[in-house]
């Protein structure tokens, strides 16, 4: 086990995908760290490698080279069973297309990660209630996803991502299918949860308007980190490279 103080440590990560006889480099020697309690946006145009990076941090893909440490554990070297356990206990996911189970109600969707963890029924009820309340959708608990608006669905997805108290929540373009008002509300909701519960959020977006109130932004271009901007504290910006379209 490797030891660092960061919750997430991305160390010189490269990810290549085979394509015919060539390989496409989605991420090229990316490195940065995320501390517990941070609220971090990964920004960049389409094809810059945002989703690939989130997949790697979320342990649902493995880097071609380099390593990713989650809570000081090198996720790249874990067995499939341990990787599944790490995802189950440490990470919450929010997806661009909500990805709720359509035959489950809102509360049953939120309950699912607890079910997988083997949490008792009474505990599940309590924690689902808390999670739904934290996203302001207690009244919609027994509605199926097809009866909810896009904004409500994504808030249910956020409740599902936080219900098991993960150390890290990953959101891949969570606002891409929402209008501006719902998108802003969702980012505000995630920021509130980050502040109130101390949850670490990493989300990807290419929407510049949503980045205005984001304390730290890692910008990607062509698979490389081109800047790592922190607006909190000293208002630090580290420009690493220029993005060449």
């Amino acid at each position, binding site marked *: 086990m490797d030891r660092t103080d960061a919750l997430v440590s991305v160390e010189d990560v490269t990810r290549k995908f085979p394509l015919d006889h060539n390989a496409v480099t989605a991420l090229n020697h990316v490195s940065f760290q995320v501390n517990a309690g941070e609220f971090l946006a990964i920004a960049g145009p389409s094809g810059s490698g945002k*989703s690939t990076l989130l*997949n790697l941090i*979320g342990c*649902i*893909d493995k880097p071609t080279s380099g390593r990713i440490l989650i809570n000081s554990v090198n996720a790249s070297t874990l067995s499939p*069973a341990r990787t*599944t*356990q790490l*995802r*189950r*206990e440490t990470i919450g*996911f929010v*997806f661009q*297309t909500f*990805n709720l*189970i*359509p*035959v*489950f109600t809102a509360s*049953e969707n939120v*309950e*699912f*990660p607890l*079910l*997988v*963890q083997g949490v008792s029924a009474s505990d599940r009820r309590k924690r689902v209630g808390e999670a739904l309340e934290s996203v302001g959708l207690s009244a919609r608990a027994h509605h199926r996803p097809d009866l909810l608006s896009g904004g409500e669905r994504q808030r249910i997805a956020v409740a*599902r991502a936080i219900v098991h108290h993960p150390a890290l929540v990953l959101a891949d373009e969570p606002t891409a299918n929402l209008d501006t008002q719902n998108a802003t509300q969702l980012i505000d909701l995630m920021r509130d949860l980050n502040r109130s519960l101390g949850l670490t959020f990493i989300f990807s977006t290419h929407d510049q308007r949503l980045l205005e109130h984001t304390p730290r932004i890692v910008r990607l271009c062509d698979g490389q980190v081109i800047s790592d901007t922190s607006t909190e504290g000293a208002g630090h910006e580290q420009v690493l490279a220029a993005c060449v379209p």
Partner: protein
Amino acid sequence: MSKFLLLAFRNVFRNRRRTIMTLLMVGGGVTGLLLAGGYFAFMTRGLREDTIRNGLGHMQIFTADHFRRDEVHVLDTGIDNWRQIAATVSTGGHVRGVAPRIEFYGMVSNGAKSSVFMGSAVDPIAETSLGFSTRVTTGHNLSGKAEGEVEALIGAGLAKSMNVKVGDGLTLLAVTTDGALNGVDVQIAGIVNNGIAELDARYLRITLASAQRLLQSDRVTNLVVGLDATENTDAVAIALEPRLHGLSQELVLKKWIDLAAYYKQVRTMFNGIFLFMGLIVFLMVLMSSVNTLLMAMMERTREIGTMLAMGTPRAWVVALFMLEATLLGALGAIVGLAGGNLLGALINSAGLHMPPPPGYTVQISFRVLHVPSLMIGSSLMVVVSLACASILPAIRASRLQIAEALSHV
């Protein structure tokens, strides 16, 4: 676990049209098996009871010699003290009665023409008390009276061959136990139609007393035991066998199933046909269900990816798909049971008949029995078939690459 079951149950009804089609297909298979199996069961049960009622009885007692060697003369291996044995057997539980029989053969003549007959001699009163029926189409059954003309029943084919009718006289010639030729004149009391043309061409029946006079012997070939119900055969046989030991002759007790060669052949044939049908239904359900379940898996690729991303063990995904298929199979079985029993009841109420099979001269009822073991077996078969069909889709689903599954459109 209950939520997991709930998820599987709701997934079954996710695509209603496809589910209904699958249920109809699975249910149709079960219905087909129930109707075919129910008809076969009716046929074999009917054949069993016909075989027993037509004179085989539930058990028969012979001398051991009857099976050890061929008779040189008629009744060589017959039973001597049959009255004592019959009295002993009659006191047993579930025994309705005992009928002595003589099986013999000889020549029959009308003065102008002769033919071979296969004769059986019976005690008409004992036969009637056991419920053994003789299909007398013209005339009447043997009366059993001691005086007057010797009565005979002959097969319809033999009557036609000899050009005789009820009331006409015939002469029977047979070899006695001493090897001498003996004859007796008989009057035809009735014409019999057994339903089997070959048998009717040689069939002749007279009373036991007449046969004993003809054959010059007090022996009988065997004793036929009738019970109150066929289901009691095994229990009665176990109880009777010890009581047949220690007598002057070594005796053997045969159950009806040991003597009903034709019944066993028919039952084996029906079982073979039914197994073949079952195999076809199993394969049909299996192959079409694999396709249906693969489609369901493809449609839910992103959802499976989401579940796996959230840390759902891959074994759970396999179990979920297999559970869904098993539920689908169980529902299909229920549909099939309802359909099969309903159609069976309709067929039974319609009073349908099948044409006579080759070698038979009477129509056969078309009825369907409701057999519980058949219902359970058919239902289990389709459930297992669906469960087997889900293995490939379930394994494919569990092996999905999460990142690829999440980006599946």
